[in-house]
C-alpha cells in the first residue's frame, strides 16, 4: 500500500492544531438592567446571558444578575448602587465559587419570567438570551453575611 505521507502528515497536524486551539469564550459582561423595586428588599432586573445551549445561557443570565448585584452594584437603583462585595480579592473565593456552582443563589430568587432567546451566536456558536428575575436582596445580603463574605452593617 502506498501512503501519501506528506498529505497524511498535513492532515494530522491540522487536526492537532484544531484540537489544541482554545475555544473563544463568551464575554463576561454585566448586562443587567434594573427594572423595578417591587417590594421593600427586592429588586427586579433583566439580565443577558450567553451559552452553548439555551438552558446554559439562561443559567448564565441568572448568575450574572446575582454577580452584578454582588460585585458591581446597580447604578440605576440607589439601594444597590454600592456592590455588596466591592473587592472580591479580600474574601474567600471558594465560598463564592460554591455559592454559584451549587446554585445556592436560587433560594434568593423570588420570581422569574420565561427566558427570551435574543439570537444565535456564530463565534463562538451559542445563544444570547434575556431573563427577568426578582431577587430578595435583603435576604441575599444576610445569607452572604452568614457565609462571612459580606460584613454585617457596622464595624
Amino acid at each position, binding site marked *: 500500500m502506498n501512503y501519501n505521507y506528506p498529505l497524511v502528515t498535513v492532515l494530522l497536524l491540522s487536526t492537532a492544531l484544531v484540537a489544541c486551539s482554545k475555544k473563544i469564550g463568551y464575554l463576561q459582561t454585566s448586562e443587567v438592567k*434594573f427594572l*423595578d*423595586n417591587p417590594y*421593600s*428588599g427586592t429588586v427586579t432586573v433583566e439580565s443577558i446571558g450567553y451559552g452553548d445551549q439555551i438552558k446554559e445561557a439562561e443559567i448564565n443570565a441568572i448568575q450574572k444578575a446575582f454577580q452584578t448585584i454582588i460585585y458591581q452594584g446597580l*447604578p*440605576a*437603583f*440607589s*439601594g*444597590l*448602587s*454600592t456592590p455588596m462585595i*466591592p473587592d472580591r480579592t479580600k474574601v474567600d473565593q471558594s465560598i463564592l465559587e460554591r455559592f454559584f456552582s451549587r446554585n445556592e443563589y436560587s433560594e434568593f430568587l423570588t420570581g422569574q419570567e420565561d427566558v427570551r432567546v435574543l439570537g444565535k451566536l456564530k463565534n463562538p456558536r451559542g445563544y444570547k438570551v434575556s431573563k427577568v428575575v426578582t431577587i430578595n436582596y*435583603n435576604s441575599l*445580603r*444576610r445569607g452572604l*453575611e452568614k457565609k462571612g463574605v459580606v*460584613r*454585617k*452593617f*457596622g*464595624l
Partner: protein
Amino acid sequence: MKNVSILFLLLFFVLSTSNDLWGQEEVQQIQPRIMVMPYAKKDQDVRTVLEDDINFRVAISKVKEGFDNRGFTTIDFVGRLKAGEVDDIFTSDSPSDVKTALIEASGADIYVEVEAHTESSASGNSARIILQAFDAFTGQSLSNKTGISHFMRHDQYDLLVEQALNRKDGDTKISMVEDFLNSMQSKFDDIVENGRTVKVIFKLDGNAWFDFDYETTTGDYLSDAVYDWIHENAYKNNYVQTGASQLSVTFDQVRIPLRDKRGRNFTPYRFARDIRSGLRGITLEEDPDSEISVSRDVRGGTIYITLQ
C-alpha cells in the same frame, strides 16, 4: 526516665493552658451605638418635635426600619428622652443644651438627625427629607442624603414623606434610607481598613512647673517627645497634628486599630493607657531626677492627656 516523664507533664500543662495553641475565644467587635433622633432648629426643643409633627415620626420610623433590616439595633430616642426626664439630666431649658445633654446621656457614638419639611405651592404639596449622621464626639459627618417628593395635590403629608424616601428620579430609583446606610457602611469599611479616628489633646496641669518647650534629658523638646510617640504608634502612621504651643499639643485625628495584636478589641481607653505608659518615665533637663506624671481622661473619641 522519671525526669523525662516530669518534663512531658510540665510541657503538657504549659501547652494546655496556652490559648494560642488550643484556640482563642471568639472576639466580638464592639459596635458603635447609634441613635436616630429628630432634627430641631435652634429655637426648637428636641423633646417636643416628635409630638408636634407626624412627618418626623414617619421619617424616623422608616430610618429605624432600615437599620433593623440590616440587623442593627439603634438606641431608642423616645426611651432615652423619658429616662433623661426621670434622671433629671435637662438642667437647662436652652434647646441646644437639651440636645447635647440627651446625646451625652444616651451614650450614643453616632447620632442620626432626621429632618422632615413639608412645602405647599400652586403645584401642590411636597415633603423634603434630610438625613445626616454625625460622630457624637468629633462631629465628623458620616453620611448625608436629601430627598424631595413630587408635588401632589393632596395633603396626606405622611404619604409624601414616604414618597420622598422612595422615589423615581428619571430612570433611577432612589431608596434614600438604603443609600444613606450604604454611605455609612462605606465609612465603617474605611474604619475597619484604616482604623478609627480619635482626637488626642496633650495639656499641662495648672500646677505644672514646665511647658512643652522644655527640653527632656534626651535633648528633645517635650512637645517633640509627644509628637514622636504619636508618630510611632498611630495606626498605619496616620495622624494629623493641628496645634502645638507651649501649653498644649493637639492631634485632631489619630487613627487607632480596632483590634490589638492579640486580636482583642482596642478602644480609645486602651490607647490612652498606652500613651500614659509611653510618656511616663520622661525626665526633663531642668529636673532629671523626677519623672513627669501623666494622667488621662477619655470622653468617647477624645483623649485628654494631662502632664504634671
